């Protein structure tokens, strides 16, 4: 019996075969993968996982692919860093950073979801993959497609910055710039996905694609010594990452890999695009779409597909949500870099900024085992901090000038 039972509508519960479909024909609700947990339980164990590859594929039993061949073989199993310095600064006894700034091959957590999406796409017989993206997703799809020898189309808005376009072109996909605003690009991509027999990773392959995010929960639990954290802080764009981390934690319990899920899931957004956090703080179970205006562009989704489900998961876990200003995002990036040596993209600044707020509010307590998810590398968004990191100290090429500048004595020197 297959470990995948069906695709199931998240709204009405109607089941469908595990093909490339994403919307319920009855109620138009989104579909997700339903598993045969009883079947999986027979084969999965802590020991088997620990003996698996040092990648996210050690959890292949819990992912919606048949295998045994996987695309993106190096994605996942990124470090869980014990953040003693940042923890001390914030007043937390046991803080960890899940560091996806070093995820392979394109240095963001998207490599997890794309590896699952392309593996499943190939299993379903697709040879062309596509996505609509302004950044990390496009990089990851283009890189994975190049490596897998699949045809690739990347759709981008016509006004995307040159550096981001280059990050896609280097892998030689078909990069299609669409004239028009974000809404125009969004609408056209949805229509193209409906018309062409392609694997559009975040549209018709989305039920599989989204499951890749669960590996962040699995790895966290294993790396903590098979225990669930008390608190997690997760950046939210579509809201999918948060809902899948919550799902992943519960799957581990369902399969007997952990005894309990005691985790509170907390969501983080930037003030300039915070439809989900705003709804949560207003006590609403629905969000109002917004026009994004923030430096945290990888989180700038104004009408998030999983916003409702993220609100639900956070409420179920008795977690919280909050948002931070662009200034606090930059401060968060700097704080993480200067305490832990990890350079995060703007989404990481959002996570650290909200973590800081939640600790200050007393929502996260000193003794809570806390994990902050850092989902992308700072080299991708250097423009966000370029005016906030100071300048190098400039000196004449002489030892005297150097020692004078740094007030050098016999026993070492100080800062300039």
């Amino acid at each position, binding site marked *: 019996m297959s470990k995948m039972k069906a695709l199931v509508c998240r709204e009405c519960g109607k089941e469908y075969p595990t093909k490339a479909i*994403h919307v319920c024909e*009855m*109620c138009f609700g989104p579909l997700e993968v339903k598993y045969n947990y009883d079947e999986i339980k027979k084969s999965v164990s802590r020991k088997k996982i620990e003996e698996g590859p040092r990648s996210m594929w050690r959890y292949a039993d819990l992912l919606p692919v048949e295998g045994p061949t996987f695309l993106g073989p190096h994605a996942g199993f990124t470090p869980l860093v014990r953040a003693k310095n940042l923890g001390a600064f914030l007043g937390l006894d046991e803080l960890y950073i899940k560091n996806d700034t070093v995820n392979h091959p394109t240095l963001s957590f998207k490599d997890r979801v794309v590896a699952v999406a392309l593996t499943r796409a190939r299993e379903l017989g697709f040879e062309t993959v596509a996505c609509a*993206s302004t950044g990390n997703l496009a990089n990851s799809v283009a890189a994975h497609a190049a490596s897998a020898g699949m045809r690739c189309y990347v759709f981008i808005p016509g006004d995307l910055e040159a550096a981001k376009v280059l990050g896609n072109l280097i892998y030689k996909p078909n990069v299609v710039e669409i004239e028009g605003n*974000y*809404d125009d690009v969004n609408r056209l*991509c949805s229509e193209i*996905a*409906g018309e062409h027999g392609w694997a559009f990773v975040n549209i018709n392959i989305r039920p599989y694609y989204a499951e890749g995010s669960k590996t962040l929960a699995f790895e966290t639990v294993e790396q903590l010594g098979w225990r669930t954290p008390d608190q997690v802080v997760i950046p939210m764009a579509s809201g999918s990452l948060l809902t899948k981390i919550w799902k992943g934690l519960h799957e581990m319990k369902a399969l007997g890999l952990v005894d309990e899920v005691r985790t509170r899931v907390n969501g983080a957004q930037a003030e300039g695009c915070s439809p989900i956090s705003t709804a949560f703080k207003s006590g609403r179970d629905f969000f109002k779409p917004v026009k994004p205006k923030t430096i945290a562009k990888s989180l700038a989704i104004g009408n998030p597909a999983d916003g409702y489900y993220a609100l639900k998961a956070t409420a179920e876990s008795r977690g919280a949500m909050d948002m931070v200003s662009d200034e606090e995002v930059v401060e968060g990036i700097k704080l993480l870099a200067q305490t832990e040596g990890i350079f995060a993209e703007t989404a990481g600044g959002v996570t650290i900024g909200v973590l800081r707020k939640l600790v200050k509010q007393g929502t996260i307590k000193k003794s809570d085992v806390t994990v902050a998810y850092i989902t992308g590398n700072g080299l991708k968004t250097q423009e966000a901090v370029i005016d906030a990191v100071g300048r190098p100290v400039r000196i004449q090429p002489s030892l005297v000038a150097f020692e004078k500048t740094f007030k050098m004595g016999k026993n070492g020197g100080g800062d300039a």
Partner: protein
Amino acid sequence: MSNMRFHIRFPEEKIKEPVIYQIGKEYQVVTNVRRADVRETTGWMDLELTGETAEIERAVEGLRKKGVVVDPIELNVVE
């Protein structure tokens, strides 16, 4: 004939207007509401439009002109 699926949102001042009825009268499209949540100050519908592609596009434009926000059923797909 095509079927296209949309998620539409009503601003507060449009909630009481029979927008779906009007679209069905003004354009050669069949309207089919599959899911909806209409409250005092906010409302949305998941809507299927059936008709010639060009006529569906005109109907969508008509919805927009009436002040209704029209998105793909998937909401935002550009990540």
